[in-house]
């Protein structure tokens, strides 16, 4: 039946997380932009929450930990590979625990719509010992953000909220719940040296405390966790079931009157939605808290059906946990470990179909925008026949024709380290052709330590670093960063000046060029830098074409306010 819309809204998963954070009184949201997570903090800011970009995910999580130690609620957002950067604090804040609720969003990108790998961050929850919730739509993104805060404060433990691309960027109907109970007391410093200073003597008992908490949370997840059993059409047709605690055991095929085989599917996250559509007759166990798992609920469920299949995107995480516990389940064929799942692929998984999947026509690939200032730089690198250690951003598109001017791209900040390693190992005539190329936001994220390495362990042939400074984090949709001198909400703040930073670290040759105003300049300075066995930093500065108008307005406003 069509519904009344007064308390419903259509929201993306990202917007739903932001709304929940606002309703829960989250005092601080911080993170680093990364598809598909970026819009969470932007939406939180637009709703009136306090949101800020950090230089990278590690710093963001550390700031979130500090806020949570103070007793405030904090939200930290990042894409899946961002959690690699933030892993160091994550593994130890699991030991210290928190006072205010701390929710860490990991937005995974199965299928790599805009990422360099498709790692499955459910593994991080297990490895770090941090509870993880997995929403399957925007309503659950809202509900599970609130639940994450409850779990975090009840057990004084950080909680991971694992989103995936389709949950982040699909708009679905959300019913909000309005106000949520505030923290027990306002932020205040309560000293807890053994709880928060992780020297070995204090960390050893902290590890025991963590495992005890996880045992309690696992027990809670069995009885009161966000697990659902959904009857399929076969259940409804044949006999009503009494809910998750009393599952009738259906007779196997051929017994008791020749009923067909009862299929049960264990799933979580977005896969649940595909499963309900692809296999409407199956009984489904939907897991909400995917670490620590409700293993006994999984065991009961598997025993209630004739054939139990695990349908999950990415790694066989649920499957391996079930098998380790001695639960007899089937997993998807290996070919479905790659890429996103969808209704068609889940139908094939249920049918055990491992025939080659039909190839869809290739769309038009992305490219550097016409007029993009990076274009002239990549033309110069190509024409000078450079060996280019590249990095993550729009400018990674320099790898494609007509430029074909990138030779490596590994992770955020890797341009500098990889370029230095190439210089160290290659014969001098090749080493002298190596250039590291990194964007402005990426440089701040994790290129600065690479620059320190360049000063500390300079190759015999020197090195050349090009910072492509287009004044914004363009790839993720024009976010500010410390090099722009503006905050997330575009208001002025302190600015990191790349030229000053490079000179302060001891780089002798620091040059700034505008690759549009003087298209020859970049070739000239590159050729000169490559001809010297010294360290050079070239800053190619010109605002992103798509951001230039907004940047100009903001700069004008900032100058007027001075």
């Amino acid at each position, binding site marked *: *039946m*069509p519904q009344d819309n007064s308390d419903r809204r259509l929201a993306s998963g990202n917007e739903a997380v932001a709304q929940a954070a606002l309703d829960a009184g989250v005092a601080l949201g911080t993170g680093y932009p990364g*598809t*598909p997570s970026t819009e969470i903090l932007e939406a939180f800011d637009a709703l009136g929450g306090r949101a800020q970009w950090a230089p990278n995910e590690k710093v963001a999580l550390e700031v979130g930990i500090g806020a949570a130690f103070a007793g405030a609620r904090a939200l930290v957002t990042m894409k899946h590979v961002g959690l690699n950067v933030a892993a160091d604090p994550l593994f130890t804040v699991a030991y210290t625990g928190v006072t205010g609720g701390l929710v860490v969003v990991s937005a995974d990108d199965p299928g790599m719509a805009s990422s360099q790998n498709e790692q499955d961050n459910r593994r991080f929850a297990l490895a770090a010992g941090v509870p993880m919730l997995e929403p399957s739509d925007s309503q659950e993104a809202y509900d599970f953000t609130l639940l994450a805060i409850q779990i975090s404060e009840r057990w004084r433990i950080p909680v991971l909220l694992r989103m995936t691309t*389709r949950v982040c960027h699909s*708009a*679905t109907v959300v019913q909000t719940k309005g106000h949520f109970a505030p923290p027990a007391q306002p932020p205040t410093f309560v000293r807890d040296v053994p709880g928060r200073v992780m020297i070995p003597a204090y960390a050893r008992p902290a590890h025991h405390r963590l495992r005890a908490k996880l045992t309690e949370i696992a027990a809670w997840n069995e009885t009161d966790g966000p697990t659902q059993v959904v009857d399929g059409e076969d259940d409804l047709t044949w006999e009503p079931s009494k809910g998750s605690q009393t599952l009738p055991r259906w007779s196997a095929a051929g017994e008791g009157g020749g009923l067909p085989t009862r299929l049960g599917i264990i799933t979580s996250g977005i896969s649940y*939605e595909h499963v309900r559509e692809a296999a409407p007759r199956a009984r489904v166990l939907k897991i909400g808290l995917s670490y620590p798992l409700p293993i006994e609920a999984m065991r009961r469920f598997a025993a209630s059906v004739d054939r139990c299949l695990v349908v999950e995107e990415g790694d066989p995480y649920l499957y391996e946990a079930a098998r380790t516990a001695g639960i007899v389940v089937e997993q998807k064929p290996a070919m479905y470990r790659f890429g996103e799942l969808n209704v068609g692929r889940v139908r094939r998984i249920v049918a055990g179909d491992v025939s080659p999947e039909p190839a869809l026509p290739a769309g038009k690939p*992305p490219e550097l925008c016409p007029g993009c200032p990076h274009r002239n730089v990549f033309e110069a690198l190509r024409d000078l026949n450079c060996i280019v250690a590249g990095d993550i951003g729009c400018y990674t598109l320099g790898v494609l024709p007509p430029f074909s001017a990138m030779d490596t791209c590994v992770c955020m900040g890797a341009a500098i380290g990889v370029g230095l390693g190439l210089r160290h190992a290659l014969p001098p005539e090749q080493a002298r052709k190596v250039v590291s190329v990194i964007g402005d936001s990426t440089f701040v994220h994790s290129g600065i330590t690479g620059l320190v390495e360049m000063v500390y362990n300079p190759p015999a042939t020197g090195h050349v670093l090009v910072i492509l400074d287009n004044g914004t984090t363009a790839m993720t949709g024009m976010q500010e960063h410390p090099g722009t001198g503006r905050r997330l909400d575009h208001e002025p703040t302190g600015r990191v000046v790349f030229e000053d930073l490079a000179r302060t670290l001891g780089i002798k040759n620091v040059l700034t060029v505008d690759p549009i105003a003087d298209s020859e300049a970049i070739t000239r300075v590159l050729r000169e830098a490559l001809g010297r066995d010294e360290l050079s930093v070239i800053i190619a500065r010109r605002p992103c074409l798509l951001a230039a108008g907004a940047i100009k307005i903001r700069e004008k406003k900032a100058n007027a306010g001075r």
Partner: protein
Amino acid sequence: MPGASAVVNVVVAGLGGQGVLKASSILADTAFRAGLDVKKSEIHGMSQRGGSVSSDVRFGERVFSPMVPAGEADYLVVLAPSQVEVARPVLKAGGILIHPGLVDETRLANKRSLNVALLGVLARHLDLAENLWHAAIRAALPEKLHAANLQAFAIGRNP
């Protein structure tokens, strides 16, 4: 029976910068205003740098997956002629293709409103009230663009 039979599946396709995502948002909002269950899915990020863009909108009494399964779209709205063949595999047998040739672009007050004009063509096939379309168009765009886009919608809807 729950599931696919009651759900209307629409795919909007085109190139980055053409307003694919804006069109799918307006469609999703219109169905939402009609009190239906709605899901809309799209991919952000690298694909938007001038490459192919598509967005799925599904609505009905109950929608599960946010993505239209291949070969099951009832309607395919394509904004760029070059993307028709790229997107065609999503369309079911007998599904309806809505392409730019169906709108006389010279009549548009603003050429950038082609996306909304093609929604007007789509609206001829859907059981969604005119006033809901208008409300969704107004909600999705700044006021200075309302007139041009309502005109574009009307051109598509009543050729």
